[in-house]
């Protein structure tokens, strides 16, 4: 049995949360790379969370930037659980770093409250023209860019060929346009369910905890929307919304996913997969190193595309790099962001950290992932199904709260016995309450 890195981090988060709640103020940081803290002058300060691979890549690129420009970039690495409480506190008391990293779904809460540096004058056409439009939109607020889309990640369907073969499934889609339809996918799951042992489920989906928004993938596949075109009111109360919710609720009702992988569960889809408890799993490219290590030589695994209904869809993962409005040297901050987005730097970062680039010139090129490079094309292609309209809905300023509401309501629907209609109504009411509609 394995204790995953995430489980450990989650435990650490629990303890840090307990410490905060018990009134022991203060936000401790982790390690740091670079020289002086504080930034200003010919130095920059940056705060980010990072996996081991990401930390190595950030540190290497900071060194390269110093060699080129002479400016020291002091990067402070903190646990993800502390990241935004740290940043929020620093922004409030005027001690924010020059730069920090933020996921796309949280960026709106900073850009909409005037906390970030407007990068309109810092990004040139060579860069913005090469960005995948959906990702460039993800860092904009009211038409102005407040960050650079540093990398993205998404989910695809990991599977075990041995278990599929035992169920008589010998072919899986190897092109995006040939992805299973929902009906075909349902047939696959049903056949697997009939052949697998009782304690092994056919499938699992990575919508646990803060990943609840990944359920929207199903909504988008069904042709539905979470928000209306003005992004001001809920649009989930639709036939597509009910269809997506009924299908995903059925996964739990019919025992097609492990019951302990519900949206509020501590057990993630990748935990179930590496534990040998599922035959397939919708997993993100960012967990591939952990999956590769945990599975070892116990069984073979490969990846194919998500199923599709009205259309194919994907979920918006990944992070932007932003400069704060308090940055002491905005010019230098802009220069560092441009440096991080240079094609060779973004490519090497993504290859090292098993993540996906956001520049069009790189999405069309072959990435040499340090782990399972054979899987990169599937993830890269799956990410192309993300549309600017999808991105706009998950980057509204209040999306963090919408994500929490989604987690609570989906939990009630999937394992709490609440009906599809009641859940759709509840999600719509929550969303309207948050957007003020």
């Amino acid at each position, binding site marked *: 049995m394995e204790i995953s890195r995430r489980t450990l981090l989650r435990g650490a988060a629990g303890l840090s949360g307990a410490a905060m709640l018990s009134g022991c103020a203060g936000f401790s940081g982790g390690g740091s790379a670079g020289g002086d803290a504080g930034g200003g002058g010919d130095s920059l300060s940056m705060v980010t969370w990072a996996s081991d691979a990401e930390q190595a890549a950030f540190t290497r690129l900071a060194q390269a930037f110093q060699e080129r420009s002479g400016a020291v970039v002091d990067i402070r690495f903190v646990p993800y659980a502390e990241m935004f409480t740290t940043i929020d506190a620093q922004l409030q008391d005027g001690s924010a770093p020059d730069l920090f990293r933020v996921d796309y779904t949280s960026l709106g809460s900073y850009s909409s409250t005037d906390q970030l540096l407007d990068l309109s004058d810092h990004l040139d056409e060579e860069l913005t023209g090469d960005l995948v439009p959906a990702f460039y939109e993800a860092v904009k607020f009211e038409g102005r860019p407040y960050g650079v889309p540093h990398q993205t990640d998404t989910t695809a369907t990991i599977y075990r060929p041995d278990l599929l073969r035992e169920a008589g499934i010998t072919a899986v889609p190897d092109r995006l346009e040939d992805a299973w339809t929902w009906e075909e996918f349902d047939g696959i799951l049903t056949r697997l369910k009939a052949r697998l042992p009782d304690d092994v489920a056919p499938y699992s989906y990575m919508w646990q905890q803060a990943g609840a928004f990944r359920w929207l993938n199903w909504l988008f596949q069904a042709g539905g929307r979470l928000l209306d075109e003005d992004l001001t009111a809920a649009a989930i109360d639709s036939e597509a919304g009910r269809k997506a919710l009924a299908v995903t609720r059925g996964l739990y009702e019919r025992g097609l996913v492990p019951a*302990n992988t519900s949206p509020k569960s501590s057990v993630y889809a990748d935990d179930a997969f590496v534990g040998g408890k599922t035959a397939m799993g919708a997993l993100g490219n960012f967990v591939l190193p952990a999956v590769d290590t945990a599975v070892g030589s116990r069984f073979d695994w490969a990846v194919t595309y998500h199923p599709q209904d009205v259309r194919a869809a994907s979920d918006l993962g990944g992070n932007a790099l932003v400069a704060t409005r308090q940055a002491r040297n905005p010019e230098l901050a802009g220069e560092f962001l441009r440096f991080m987005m240079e094609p060779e730097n973004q490519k090497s970062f993504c290859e090292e950290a098993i993540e996906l680039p956001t520049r069009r010139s790189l999405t069309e090129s072959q990435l040499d992932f340090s782990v399972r490079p054979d899987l990169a094309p599937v993830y890269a292609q799956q990410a192309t199904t993300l549309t600017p309209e999808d991105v706009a809905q998950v980057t509204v300023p209040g999306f963090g709260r919408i994500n929490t509401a989604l987690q609570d309501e989906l939990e009630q629907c999937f394992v709490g016995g609440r009906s599809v209609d009641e859940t759709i109504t509840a999600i719509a009411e929550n969303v309207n309450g948050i957007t003020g509609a």
Partner: protein
Amino acid sequence: MASPAPKKAGAEADMDGLPGPAAPVPAAVPRGVPGPSSRGRGARSLSTTAAGWAFVTPNLLVLALFLFLPLVLTWVVSFQQASPLGTQGWVGPDNYVRLLSDPVFWRVLLNSVVFTVLTVPVSIALGLGLAVLLNASLPGRAFFRTAIYLPIVLSNLVTSLMGLLLFNEGVGVLNDLLRDLGGAGLPWQSDGTLAMISVVVMTIWTRVGFAMVIYLAALQDVPQELYEAARLDGAGAWQQFRHLTLPLLSPSTLFLVVMNVIWSFQIFDVVYVMTGGGPGNATSMLVTYAYEQGFGPARDFGYGATIGVVLFVLTLGLTALQLRSRTGEDRT
């Protein structure tokens, strides 16, 4: 009823440290004629007071800064709409009104009460039983005492992770055992009742050792003559336990009840790591809910603080009730 004799400065103490009933009272010193030792006593008293304040002041400052000030601020924030980057402002009792109509709050309050009712008596009773057992001359007594106390030494994170490994319904040790024995695994994580039981079991495991140590210390102070007298009067083992041991341990029991009730209402780490409050809200507690509201994506500090205030009032009230009932017992 005899009124207690006023304490005299300089009263001598017996060799055993207790004031002797026949201790000599020093002769009164004539007014205006300071005795040779009066100034010395005054200076000594002043010096003692200053030393006392010197010891207490740093602690008071730390308490004021890290306990009382945050406590007051929590009350203040509970009357505000407060988020780190969003709007700030006074909202009066709105957060409390919202709390009353929030079904999740009532659910987590019920969960906290159920959790407390399940964990407090069981951990104290088990601690008492183990203390009585390990107070006797048993082979391997030191080993068992250490083994039972060990979870206290471990970090709560570690014990919670162990709980996760034990009760994981997919790859957990317990379900593996059940399957090896030919049965089916139990839904420890997807059934609300079983999830609550798993959290309760792990919590009790971490607390039994503490109760045992407190009771063991108290048992050392029980005079053996009382048991000899009871045996001479014909009392059996159960009667000795019921009418001697239990009453004599009651101060320790009160301490353990107060501490365990506070700990149970403040439970966070075990729940956060093992169940995340799920399935649904089946294991969500007051503190985990406050954390979700205050430090989750919503960052609703005002509402999180409101839940914190309710937790504080509840804990304070329950502790006061327990202390009051103890005072009543002492009077009777």
